[in-house]
């Protein structure tokens, strides 16, 4: 499944903010980390701010901070602010049986995608990120072996 660039950027940003809810994260820091222009990111953050997911903090040390509920907000909530995932049900009004059959199969994929994204909250996603981090960081034993070598 491929998400549009703005959607991916929104997910990256929200996870950065939700992962450090007490910190005011400068937009430039996220733009730099994900290799996008601050102007492009500002448009995405404006959508998230309008939805109440983030809020901007002005002044020295300003930036954005997370304003949502990480245990309630799902990946689907964020995705749907930027793109449509397709109809929940196949379009029954199609003329051709080939189109209707194809709609049935594509509808199955859409339904599974919606169920997956709708069942993963930001809190769950942050735990998944943590697991990925610990899986990629060296264990103390392997770190010791590396230092000894």
């Amino acid at each position, binding site marked *: 499944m491929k998400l549009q660039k703005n959607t991916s950027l929104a997910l990256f940003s929200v996870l950065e903010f939700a992962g450090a809810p007490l910190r005011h994260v400068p937009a430039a820091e996220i733009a730099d980390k994900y290799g996008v222009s601050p102007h492009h990111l500002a448009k995405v953050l404006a959508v998230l701010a309008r939805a109440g997911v983030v809020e901007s903090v002005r002044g020295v040390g300003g930036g954005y901070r997370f304003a949502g509920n990480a245990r309630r907000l799902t990946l689907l909530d964020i995705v749907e602010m930027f793109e449509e995932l397709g109809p929940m049900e196949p379009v029954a009004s199609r003329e051709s049986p080939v189109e209707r059959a194809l709609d049935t199969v594509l509808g199955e994929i859409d339904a*599974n995608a919606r169920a997956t994204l709708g069942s993963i909250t930001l809190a769950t996603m942050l735990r998944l990120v943590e697991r990925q981090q610990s899986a990629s960081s060296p264990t103390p034993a392997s770190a010791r072996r590396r230092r000894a070598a």
Partner: protein
Amino acid sequence: MAGQPVSVARAPRAVSAQAARVLHVRKVRRADLAPVIAIDAVVTGVEKRAYWQGVYRRYGVGRIAERQFLVAELDGRVVGFVIGEVRDWEFGSPACGWVFAIDVDPAARLGGIGSRLLEAISARFRAAGVTKLRTMLARDNTVILSFFRSQGMMAGPLVSLEMDIAPAAEPRR
């Protein structure tokens, strides 16, 4: 560990009471059937007394390590349950633990009781020799789906399929 009483903090929404409460996960007893049936009826809207009695006979009686029916007791009151079994070579898959029912009284949710039930049944399945836990549920059941996701469950290698079975044709005379 399953079977050991532990203190649990109350859910954030119920912090006013502040006092730690005692949660105990243990094997089901016949007297627990009434609260189990009541919780299921509240959650599903259908009371299935005969069904639950059958489940109790199959999973609650005896000491078969491969069949587990556990309840969560909070301050002496049954507030949740989990049921599952070890299945061998189902769909060509090595033995794994299947959870086919888990629920917590809606009034007692958000306090970590579901997590404790899942930990308890996982520990018992682990003791029975399996290292994989599976479940299956409706994709529009977002509450329970989100719960399993929050516990670290991801999509597995099995895909559920179904079809309508057409009525049998009338025999020719």
